[in-house]
């Protein structure tokens, strides 16, 4: 911590920012992939337009990923409201 830059705030912004700002979209992408995945065992998809084409396990995993993303956002909003 020096008088010009609050270093402890800075590194927290970078680390938490990476987790939330890059990690959450990545997790969302993992979920999206899981949603679509199952269908690749069933070979060429005829239902390419559809987002949901996957296996049950894939969809459950996708649901888990999306739930984590939503929970993280909810927690973020909670922290902001609490801080005021």
């Amino acid at each position, binding site marked *: 911590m020096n008088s010009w830059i609050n270093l402890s705030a800075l590194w927290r912004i970078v680390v938490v920012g990476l987790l939330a*700002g890059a990690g959450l979209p990545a997790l969302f992408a993992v979920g999206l992939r899981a949603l*679509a995945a199952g269908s690749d065992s069933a070979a060429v998809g005829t239902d390419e337009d559809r987002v949901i084409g996957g296996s049950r396990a894939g969809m459950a995993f996708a649901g888990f990923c999306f739930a984590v993303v939503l929970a993280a956002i909810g927690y973020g909003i909670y922290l902001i409201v609490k801080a005021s």
Partner: protein
Amino acid sequence: MSNDFVLVLVVITALAFDFTNGFHDTGNAMATSIATRALPPKVAVGLSGVLNLVGAFLSLSVAATIASGLVNTKLITLTVVFAGLAGGILWNLTTWFLGIPSSSSHALIGGVIGSTLAAAGSHGVKWHGLVQKVIIPAVLSPIIALCIAAIGTYLVYRITRDVNEKTRTHGFRIGQIGSASMVSLAHGTDDAQKTMGIITLALISNHTLASGAKAPFWVILSCALAISLGTYIGGWRVIRTLGKGLVEIDAPQGMAAESSSAAVILLSSHFGYSLSTTHVATGSILGSGVGKKGAEVRWSVAGRMATAWVITLPAAGAVGALAYYAAHGIGGSAGVLIMFLVVAAGGAAFYWQSRKTAVTSKNVNDEWSGTVAPPAKTPVGV
């Protein structure tokens, strides 16, 4: 009595600034969603407006910083506050007219510092606070946002590389709406508070409120309404530059960019940095271009913006100082009233000029051809 008259003018001017802040910054949250057609333009600005309104009520931690951290509040008079706001508004309108996403926060801070310098001289400004709380975060935040967005974009494309194009676009459009909503919310919590801080400062300097008082409810409500109305009107010129000018954006990039913006803005305001939403959003959008292989990033457009960012503080400051000298020179309530009318006339002139080369919800997504508006005659100042 005359003090109250000036106070009313100051509050109206502050709300007018808040309004320009709203429409100037709509693009920060919604430009990418509009560009990728995740949302129809009108729906996007409507959603953003509502979320700005909600956001304004969420938190009040930045409101104090802007006033007490940057200038010596004991030296502030209503005329100083008014002149600062005038500087902020005129600079916001100039950059909006040119389609440059410059920082509304810097316009406000620049204006207030300029008018304080004019009124009280150099000792009225807390230079250390200015560098620590405004300038350094302004340099760092877009870089951090750029890196996070670049990493996010890279990861997102890498993870979904086997997913077919249609599914991917559809999925990320939904994700994008969510992340853009977070940015709107963050914008409401962050930027609406800045105007609340200014109005509170005016109330304190008029002794309507005791020193150190918090923003009264009517201030919070009117600021929230002004910023959300401004957001809904939509600064289409700026939206166009951000959504089409910097990078040709696809849905996955849009989501990565907005997530990065939301994270950096919310975290920074959590630590009390009143940084610029605009700088962060621009950094993120650039990052989403850097992180995607083969994406075209128009660095020349980015360079033009960076120039505007550097100029914003001194330019708004110069206008603020001029407005102070003029209002003070004429003297009393009449001085403020005359300057009020001058600013209003300036606003009307900008509006009238902008109709000649209008950018609206209809043509906002047209192919980027180099300029938002035809080359303007007065690039800097007013």
